[in-house]
């Protein structure tokens, strides 16, 4: 084998080893690196009450209730499973927070199963289009949350 090919073979072997190591680490991280739990995850694995976690999903249609004090809101988060989570939050929500769009909430579960959020983030989807099209097609369709 020529020196050049020897070096190439050595590098390719090293590269394969590094890539394999990273892929193994990433697949091990798959569950830990998820940025939030979905209602389906919570129903399946159970999330301890009192520990700070993030949950995410779609804000269910017609579920947003604003309390009389003006800053407390209640809503329900769902996903493609039948499970849902009731959420309460005191504070200002981002502009993109609305029904049928993605949301990520940081906070804790109460004993009763309700999630008390300390921070609300709106999740944006991968669709970009001008407002005029929206009138033609009606409601925007969002793909299921990853």
């Amino acid at each position, binding site marked *: 084998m020529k020196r*050049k090919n020897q*070096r*190439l073979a050595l*590098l390719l072997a*090293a*590269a394969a080893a*590094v*890539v394999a190591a*990273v892929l193994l680490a*990433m697949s091990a*991280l*798959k569950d830990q*690196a*998820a*940025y*939030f739990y*979905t209602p389906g995850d919570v129903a399946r694995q159970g999330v301890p009450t009192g520990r700070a976690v993030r949950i*995410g999903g779609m804000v269910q249609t017609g579920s947003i209730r604003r309390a009389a004090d003006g800053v407390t809101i209640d809503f329900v988060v769902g996903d493609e499973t039948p499970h849902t989570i009731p959420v309460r939050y005191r504070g200002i*929500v*981002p*502009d*993109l*927070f609305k029904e049928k*769009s993605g949301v*990520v909430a940081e906070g804790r579960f109460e004993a009763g199963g309700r999630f008390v959020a300390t*921070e*609300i*983030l*709106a*999740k*944006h*989807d*991968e*669709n*970009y*289009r*001008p*407002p*005029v*099209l*929206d009138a033609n097609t009606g409601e*925007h369709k969002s*793909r299921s*949350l*990853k």
Partner: protein
Amino acid sequence: MHAFANPARFLKLARPLTAWLGWGGGLLVALALLDGLVLAPRDYLQGESVRILYVHVPAAWLGMGGWAALAAASLMQLVWRHPLAAIAARAVAVPGAVFTAICLATGSLWGRPTWGTWWQWDGRMTSMLVLLFLYAGWIALAEAERERSGDGRLAAIFGLVGAVNLPVIHYSVLWWRSLHQGQSIGLTGTTIDPAMLWPLLGSALGFTLLFAAVVLMRMRALLARQKVEARLRRLAA
């Protein structure tokens, strides 16, 4: 590629190419940004803040593309010992780091009104920040190695190993649930309206040409510096 092993032949081609790429890229970026920032429609949900897209996405593409080029140059250097490969890698690293920083900054500016936060440690953002740190580490290592008159082999190995971060960035929104949205432009289609897609593609191409022009300029400057240093050494001897 070894036709350009001779720096004189490389310079003969690089000099006019720099001008063409620079002016072409500058013109394209100006047109695309005029379209994107002024003429293109606002988004039905995000409103005007969607216009950050026309800088953010090209910056992300070039930050990642820059490291891909750096890794390719590292491979050329380690396997074929191409005499210009180390120079090319050093020329790419700085603009690559700058575009990665632009990507992070514009993403943060967009995240505040859209998500409601400047920064979150989700998979996409964290892996992109790691890329910026890799660039910083690589530049420091390459400079240190050059000062000790090494041949840049350590930096080349670092460049190849660092490339494993690129698929991690790309797949971060697919492997893990993330705050960052999934990809909008795939092999099979796009979820971006044509009125927004064209200025985006134009600006991506324009910034890429500008990037190439900057890399050629830096390669010429680094070659000139190498020549000056060699001459000074000869005078001192």
